[in-house]
């Protein structure tokens, strides 16, 4: 060895040294050697990581989650969500605050909604057309491997053409239930066996629905306090059957699957005041927890 690395021995002699031609205590040959070592070392390490991960991922099915239902973290109680999402600059807020008279303002909310609803208006776009999509009904549930489309016309008033009625200060809010692999809802399909705490409006609605259409996860929205109820005014639900049709369940990660959505329109909410709204999904195996935000969802509405 002509030149020995003096890394620790002369640790303070940094930089280029003219006398023995070393950079940071090593000459070129020594640098080459140590670089080669670490290249080989890390190269082999990377290969090992790759092999390791490949082997382990062989144990996972690409379409079926390993942990389902009770075994999984999310469990069996689906979360309820709403759209539009309050914007990024106020990430943790649940306040929907818009001005119906200010186009640039409400268009933001409309765009926000459309960003989410896009796949409903152009089905199959995301799934590259390989999905087997069909129209389903309560009497014609999908076969295995098939997915149901969603008829956006059922949302009626709540359409992008009408700016989801934000410009008329009668905004549509979309509700959806989180997808849980393999989850089968237990419907409240017996009008005589409805829970106490279910709002009367919903109870009446269930009784008015055709028996075959009662296999539905029902949705109800209310102002949280009597004052909120008063300020909120009348509420309309689209589609007409007030909830998520049962034939969309269970979710099995089939390609092209679209979650059913319910559009809730607040027809005449009072402007200039924050209204607290709570929406709930109703099925026998949906429990309402505000802390976990499962089964129910809370948001505020403020119209300027």
């Amino acid at each position, binding site marked *: *060895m002509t030149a*020995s*690395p003096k*890394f*620790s*021995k002369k*640790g*303070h002699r940094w930089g280029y040294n003219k006398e023995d031609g070393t950079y940071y205590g090593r000459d070129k040959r020594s640098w080459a*050697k*140590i670089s080669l*070592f*670490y290249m080989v*070392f*890390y190269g082999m*390490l990377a290969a*090992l*990581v790759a092999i*390791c*991960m490949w082997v*382990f*991922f062989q144990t*996972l099915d690409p*379409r*079926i*989650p*390993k*942990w389902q239902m009770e075994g*999984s*973290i*999310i*469990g069996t109680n*689906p*979360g*309820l*969500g709403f759209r539009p*999402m*309050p914007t*990024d600059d106020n*990430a*943790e*807020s*649940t306040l929907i605050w818009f001005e119906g008279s200010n186009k640039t303002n409400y268009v933001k909310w409309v765009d926000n909604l459309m960003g989410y609803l896009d796949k409903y208006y152009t089905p199959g776009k995301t799934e590259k057309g390989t999905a087997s999509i069909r129209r389903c009904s309560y009497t014609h549930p999908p076969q295995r491997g098939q997915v149901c489309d969603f008829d956006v016309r059922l949302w009626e008033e709540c359409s992008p053409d009408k700016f989801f009625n934000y410009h008329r200060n009668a905004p549509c809010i979309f509700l*959806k239930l*989180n*997808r*849980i*692999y393999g989850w089968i809802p237990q419907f409240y399909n017996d009008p005589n066996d409805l829970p106490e705490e279910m709002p009367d409006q919903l109870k009446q609605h269930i009784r008015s629905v055709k028996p075959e259409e009662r296999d539905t996860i029902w949705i109800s929205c209310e102002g949280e306090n009597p004052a909120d109820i008063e300020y909120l005014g009348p509420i309309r639900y689209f589609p007409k059957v007030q909830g998520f049709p049962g034939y969309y369940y269970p*979710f099995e*990660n089939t390609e092209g*699957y679209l979650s059913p959505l319910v559009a809730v329109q607040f027809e005449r909410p009072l402007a200039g005041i924050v209204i607290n709204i709570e929406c709930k999904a109703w099925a026998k195996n949906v429990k309402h927890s505000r*802390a*976990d*935000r*499962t089964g129910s*969802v809370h948001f505020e509405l403020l119209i300027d």
Partner: protein
Amino acid sequence: MGKKYSKPKDQHRSSFNPDDTLEGETINITPRHSPVQDGRSTASRPLYPKSKSKAFHFRRASKKATAKTMDIYRQEISTNDHKLSLEELEFKYRTSLTEGLPRELAARMLVKYGRNELEAVATRSMFLVFLNYMFGGFAAILWGSLALSVIAFSINYTIHPDQLDEMYLSIVLFVILVGTGVFGFIQEYKNSKLIDSFKKMVPKTATVIRGGVLSNVSVEEIVPGDLIRLEGGDVVPADLRIIESHSLKVDNSSITGESEPQTRCVNATDDNPLETGNLAFFSTNVIEGGGKGIVIATGQATLIGHIATLTSGLAPESTPMKQEVKRFIKFITIYAICVSSLVTILGLSMGKEGFEMFIYFIGLLVANIPEALLVTITACLTLMAKRMSNKNCMVRNMHAVETLGQTNVICSDKTGTLTQNRMTVSHMYYDNNIFDVLSPTYVNGTTYNYLYLCRCAILCSRATFKEAQRTIPVMQRAVLGDASETAVLKCMELLTRNTKKTRKEFPKIFEIPFNSANKYQLSIHKRPNDDYLLLVLKGAPERVIDRCSSVMIEEHELPLLDSERKRLVNILMELGYMGERVLAFADLKLPSEYTADYEFSDMINFPVTGLRFVGFMSLIDPPRPGVREAVAKCKRAGISVVMVTGDHPVTAMSIARKVGIISPENDTVQDIAKRRKISVSQVIPQEVQACKACVIPGYDMRKMTAGELDEIVQRYEELVFARTSPQQKLQIVEAYQKTGKIVAVTGDGVNDSPALKKADIGIAMGICGSDVSKDAADLVLLDDNFASIVMGIEEGRIIYDNLKKSIAYILTSNIPEVVPFVIYLMLGTPRIITVIAVLILDVGTDLWPGISLAYEPAESDIMDRPPRDPKFDNLVGMKLILFCYLNIGTLQTFGSLASYFFTMAEYGFLWDRLINIQDEWYSESNAIYDSYNVEWTHEDRMTLERMGVSAYFLALVVTQISDCLISKTRRLSLAQHGFTNGVMIKGLLFEVLLSAFVVYCPYINVKLGFHPVNCYVVMCPVLPFAVLIFIYDEIRKYIIRQNPDGWFYRNTYY
């Protein structure tokens, strides 16, 4: 501090002048030995020029201010009071030899000179020490992190009162900081009682004559000039000039280390105040007799005051270990701040939020700092200290243990340390031959010559065994009598087994005890059946031979001719040259007119000439068993052993040869002179130059300049300093330190304490050492045995090696702690590790295994290699850091990341989904889909995140176990080294249990940000990596062993 030092200046005895001191204020002190002292005060070794912090410089500077005053104390005390006549003394101190000081003057003097007590010299305030432990080292940066974390918490709390992450972090940080701070302080606190033991030595009251009246005066009120009366059992209350002595004997052992009582007289016997017989020193004990003395110095001005001031004022050299650690802390701190800032700035430039990056910065900082490192080092040293205490080596300063491992030079006392401190008959001369009695092959003589010698030795003695000791081995029996008589008696009992019977057979009729005028001792005995009286005599050889006219050789009595006399003198020289004290024995059958009824008297009314010479016995304080081997071991380990003794050069050299301090092949000038039969000064300079060994007496050293001493210290491989004074001992230590040596010094007397304090390692003697010396020392040898020092050195070297292992183990985990933060920032994944998890790793799980590495046995015979050179072999070198960070740390990171990503994948988030998921992940959105399009609420995502963190944490623990195993050895394969370290098993078990506890214990785990996770899922991906770490390191060590100078050695051996 300056103020305190200025006081003794006024009191300094060398220029005492009552007129000046009572009326004028200023006294000019001129150091008497100034040429010798030059430059000594600034004798700091520039070993670590780069490691000195600014604070360090500042302290040095302030010390310089007092260096001058310190110099005064460095000189040997100088006074002329012992040479003054009594009248001059009386005049100088304005006192009366009969009446003492007038009361009124005594009161004025007390005001002038202050109380006669030792002052505590300003020591470091304990509060400052506490602050240093609280805020020094890594603590500073951690306090910074704590402050940042509190700020982060308070900002965050106003927005999200339910988010308490930063609060928990602050609490954990605070607990760690206070815990480690208090731990270190407690260790230090035990170390701070030096001056107290000086105070303990001070007597309470003394008998003083003032104005002719005898009274008991509190010792603090004694002033120069006071007339003191001393009695047996008193403690000398100040430095005294003796003016009246009735066989006054004092025990100076606490000052000079000499254990024999010293007779005090009125007249000066030596120029040197320490050697003269008419001074008695503050705090020494009066053994017997009585007398009077005039106080010549009180308080700080006394000899012991000098030593106390010198000892407390001397800064012990910062231990190499402390310097290394300081250097390392600096490196890590700068590194941590740089890396954290750099990544944070990068994050900000990538458009991350300020507050988020703020918290992130704290995390990086904490992850980059090995919080538990200092605690681990302290714990390792404490454990080692405990282990050494079990081997008769009490450690007073933990850091000293490691310093001991680097020692290049041991300056050892002779008496008691190298030798047994027990006079023993080593040679006997009879039958024309010198016999080595101590040799295991010695066979008893059978001739009349031998029998007469024994008879003479048994009879001519005042020493007797104490009663009831039949069962005790002879050497351990207690004897009434002085050291040499004891030695002879024990030797005789061993050889003849019938001293008692012989004495009974020859009842003693008369005796004259030894006195310094005659230099012999004789006794007259009568055997009942004999018709003559037997006179036996022993004494100084020349005197005895002069009195002899015949000599016993083998069976016959022959006339003592001149030729025979010459031969005896040669024998004498030979024994003397061995450094032994020779006693000559002679006997005589008294003529028949002397019967048992004859009135023998001290006036010597009987013949004491014309004796029959029967033989010599020579005595020596023999080396302790095992010392020779220990010295040889030291030499093998590259440590020079230097003898520094107050004994005669010849004796010193003889012992030095016996124990191997001077090796047989090396000649000293004295050897050459002896061989050539010329005087030392006649040896030609070339030969002097060639000598590798040298004996330097104190009187020669006094003539040397500091530079000459440094030269000598560097030139000779084997050195013996004889006849040295305490101050010279200090000079020797400093001379060695100036040449960059790490010096261990042994000592037992008060006078040794400055040298002990100054040395890198001061070693005091547990049995014969004074309390003061023990307090000044870093180590106390409980058995006074030199061999224990060598054991200590061995332990010190082991601990150094093991500390390296501990540090390697602890440092390695920094990389897997830091990388997740970088990935989080660069790849936008959820959190992979949390700050609290990092802290639990650093201060929790890693702690015990890290400490357990201190229990590792040595890998090879560490006493076969030279002491480490602090310039090249650092505790934490670049090689160690690179190896830990780039090799093992990287392997750990990959293994732990594999576990993390696999766990996340198991629950639905494949790695590609995790990349850049951050914005969605932390949003309020209640429906973030995973790789299976399942939607996750915010709550569920946070749970999953905690599981991911738990997985990473557990995986890291697994790789740390692997790391701990590979850290056990630096060179050997684990198969060769074995797994005998029981503490490590406990430590690893603790690591596993603690990590399982924090992850799986309900409630606790939520608070700490963990969530139970499937163990199997964690282990599967990481185990191959843990095994890989092990295999990789075994291969690396194999290559190092096969190729001891190869690339791997040079680049990865730490």
